[in-house]
């Protein structure tokens, strides 16, 4: 880019050259956009097509890209099956609860770490981020041992309970959300909380009446993240829950719709699509709000 600017300055370019450059840049961006769209949309479209087929048509050697005999049977069967609805409910309750728990922890934590200077606060903030870097594949066995031990000590049955996920998932969501919020809070000018302090607000009021409204875009971003992580989590529920009525959607689809070596592809695809829908709807819904928040609630007064 520097190159072009330099030449542009030296020899006055013929009129229209900028327009031609711009058009060429547009062509390339459209080319890559199309490549990406094809790449990312092919799997869901394939899922949608397969979900509309009968088992016979799926196993028949016809084109996988066309439905000759469309049917909604996969949908009606899944949506009327109590097992599938239990998975849905478990996933929904867990995800919502995780979002709430995460926000209740990470917003005050981020406020404290970014604004109340106390001994070791900087180290603690870095520590929070480092926690996030530990992969969940390393954590699930120790966590399993911990809850097995807690079960022995307290007598409470932790394992094979869907609500255990509400306790476990925040270990993944809290560090990252706290980190996002620390960044957002740090972008709020110091004078804003000083003004609030002088106006008579305590720490809690500064948080609830100034920081949360001003940092709303960041909070929404963190919420989306927490929800997506909780909704899509596979490893932990796979390891911690086994009974059919305790499963969440991603695990449930895999364990109940694959029987031995029989894959019920039509229903698997339908279940996956239905499972992917809620995050998609939330994204579509909140994205507008998110962008509006970004432009209207800018921090500089």
């Amino acid at each position, binding site marked *: 880019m520097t190159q072009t600017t330099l030449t542009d300055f030296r020899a006055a370019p013929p009129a229209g050259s900028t327009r031609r450059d711009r058009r060429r840049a547009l062509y390339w961006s459209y080319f890559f956009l199309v490549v990406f769209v094809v790449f990312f949309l092919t799997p869901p479209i394939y899922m949608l097509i397969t979900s509309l087929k009968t088992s016979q048509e799926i196993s028949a050697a016809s084109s996988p890209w066309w439905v000759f005999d469309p049917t909604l049977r996969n949908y009606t069967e899944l949506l009327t099956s109590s097992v599938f609805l239990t998975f849905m409910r478990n996933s929904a309750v867990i995800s919502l609860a995780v979002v709430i728990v995460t926000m209740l922890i990470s917003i005050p934590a981020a406020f404290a770490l970014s604004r109340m200077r106390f001994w070791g606060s900087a180290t603690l903030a870095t520590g929070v981020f480092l926690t996030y870097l530990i992969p969940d594949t390393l954590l699930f066995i120790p966590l399993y041992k911990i809850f097995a031990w807690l079960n022995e000590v307290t007598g409470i049955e932790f394992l094979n309970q869907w609500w255990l996920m509400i306790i476990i998932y925040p270990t993944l969501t809290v560090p990252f959300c706290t980190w996002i919020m620390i960044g957002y809070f740090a972008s709020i*000018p110091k*004078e*804003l909380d*000083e*003004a*609030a*302090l*002088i*106006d*008579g*607000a*305590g720490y809690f*009021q500064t948080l609830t*009446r*100034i920081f949360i*409204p*001003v940092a*709303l875009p960041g909070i929404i971003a963190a919420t989306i993240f927490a929800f997506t992580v909780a909704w899509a989590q596979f490893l932990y529920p796979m390891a911690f829950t086994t009974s059919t009525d305790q499963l969440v959607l991603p695990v449930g689809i895999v364990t109940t719709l694959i029987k031995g070596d029989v894959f019920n592809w039509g229903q698997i695809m339908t279940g996956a699509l239905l499972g992917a829908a809620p995050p998609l709807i939330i994204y579509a819904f909140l994205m507008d709000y998110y962008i509006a928040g970004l432009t*209207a*609630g*800018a*921090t*500089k*007064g």
Partner: protein
Amino acid sequence: MAEVSLRKVVKHYDSTPAVRGIDLEIADKEFIVLVGPSGCGKSTTLRMIAGLEDISAGEIAIGGQVVNDVPPKDRDIAMVFQNYALYPHMSVAENMSFALRLKNVPKAEIAARVDKAASILEITDLLARKPKQLSGGQRQRVAMGRAIVRDPKVFLFDEPLSNLDAKLRVQMRTEIKRVHQKVRTTTVYVTHDQVEAMTLADRVVVMNAGIIEQVGTPIEVYHQPATKFVAGFIGSPAMNFIPVSLEASGDGLRVRLTRELAFEVPTERAARYRDFVGREKLLLGLRPENIADQRGALSAGQRVFQIGIDVAEPMGMDTLVHFTANGAEVCGRVSAHASVRAGESCTLAADMAHMHLINDLSGRVL
């Protein structure tokens, strides 16, 4: 409404001192301006009064009550920040009423007080807007409105005009003065701009390197600076400092700039300076406006001399001339009609009635 007292106030960050012992008594309803170059401790002093910084040593009292350990919200102060610090998600009215709402003041009273403050500042038609929709000057007014609404004991201003462009700054300066005349409240105002300090203050506090150099009315600090720093800081263009020696001449005294150039010290000053005859490192301090062309009859203090002009800068109202005397760059202010040209010799008159003699070692004005 309250007086503010600072007694031996010290602030250091780790081991770096920011404020090194300040004593200041601010009277009720007085407008005090803390002025000094950046890093002189003026903002730190203000923030200590506000309670935003801990006091390392000493005592601050507001209205007779020592507030060292009183949190900002209980000090009954209001502060206007350099970047306004308006709450971006609240309307102007909400911004102004935030403090009152926190104190659970009845709604009707809040509305009345907001309306009154808004009418003082002429922002009544902006009350529903968000800070984003306001210009710099309007935001500044809202920030002041937020302070006025609370009717605090003390107003604190932290360089409130430095984010505005030059024209608006002059306008808002007048506005602040006007508001202070209407809403008589003890005010502490911090600025690095000596013009703001001179125009706004009842008393100016000139600070440098963490200490107070001088406290006085604008006229006092201008005409009777206590130190070389104050003499050089207040006034624009700055006061000239010319190395001189002081010598006796008959009954009187004479300051000698160069072998050829010496000025008689006015007799009323001679007694004050007699002890310093023959001392080393003396500076003659003379403001540019006291080095002028000869207009009409000479006044008693004026001494005429010939000098070669290095640079002439026409300002419209008058012309600044620069020349060199005893190795020092000297600036004079001559009438716009005087025929001065760079490189040519010119007759000027130095008004020694306004001279200052400075001990360059101690920095004191003698």
